[in-house]
């Protein structure tokens, strides 16, 4: 169990570092980094606090705390991915509407120039 917790600690630190670097380089916007940072901090806290992990596994009725950790990691990342799907869908809708508007404005400008 200790080895697994060390691995998840390492992964969460890598994730936090990656996200912060990406935000600094403007590869990820601050508002979209929040979900990833929250997810990795939760992972870090649970990996380092056996009290929190044991408490959660008891609440979930799981005898094995690492299993609770994996379940939580899975849930947190599913939520993050769901949130990103919502954002991508909104962006796609906005992008399509903008492309259509651009084409219509170009069309009307061209017509006006030809007149």
């Amino acid at each position, binding site marked *: 169990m200790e080895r697994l917790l060390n691995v998840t600690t390492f992964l969460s630190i890598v994730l936090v570092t990656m996200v912060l670097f990406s935000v600094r380089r403007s590869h990820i916007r601050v508002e979209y980094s929040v979900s990833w940072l929250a997810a990795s901090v939760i992972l870090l806290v649970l990996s380092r606090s056996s009290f929190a992990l044991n408490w959660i596994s008891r609440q979930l009725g799981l005898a094995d705390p690492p299993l609770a950790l994996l379940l939580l990691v899975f849930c947190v990342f599913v939520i993050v991915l769901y949130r990103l799907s919502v954002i991508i869908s909104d962006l796609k809708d906005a992008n*399509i509407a903008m*492309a*259509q508007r*651009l084409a219509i404005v170009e069309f009307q400008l061209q017509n006006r120039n030809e007149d």
Partner: protein
Amino acid sequence: MRAASGPDQLLVLIPAFNEVGAIAGVIREVRSVLPEAPILVVDDASTDGTHQTARSAGADVLRLPYHLGLGGGVQAGYKLAYELGYEYVIRVDGDGQHDPKYIPALLATLRETGCHMVIGSRFQDGNGGYTNSVRAMGIWFFRLVLRPILGKPVHDPTSGFVGVNRQALQVFTGSFPLEYPEIEALVVLQRKRFQFQEVPCRMRPRKTGRSTITAVKSLYYIFHVLLGVFINVLKFERRRKKDSPQE
């Protein structure tokens, strides 16, 4: 292309993606049937010079900045037609499958019956031959699914040879399915209590190129459209419950 000059004016809309081999012929055919009607080709970012060919053939071209897919292109055309004040829009595919000689029949049905949408149906006079077997099964399946939703049978729910009036145009400027739009568009209109009619017509094999819906894609098509239909039904049922006073 100018704004509609009269209250009853028709626009012929031709969505096209890489149809350089067929587009000029389609425009000429439409012209021969309706010499006065404005023709708008929506070029969905073709890479083969479709827009130049269409312009040379005498059509107006609405050129999209990048490939949006069939629904995105058709909706762009609907938006422009609505803004320019057109009363009726009839969509003819750019691959030559739809015979423009049926446009007057579609237009007459729109005008005379007051329905909001008219579908050129290849199955009402027994000419449904130009489709693969998987697709034919898909059409049969969707007839069954749509029958209770629409409240009446629809023979050719996947036909892209459709005409709409201004009320339907207004709805579609706000909400139009982006992929495989034909079936979902029917459900969108039905949920608003709009009416549709079918007009028998014959369709031809495409003149050039290949259909984007292959036999394998047909399965994805069925799943995608089925999901879209149910989402639309749920969406409008929820809205209807919200809108209706306590019964």
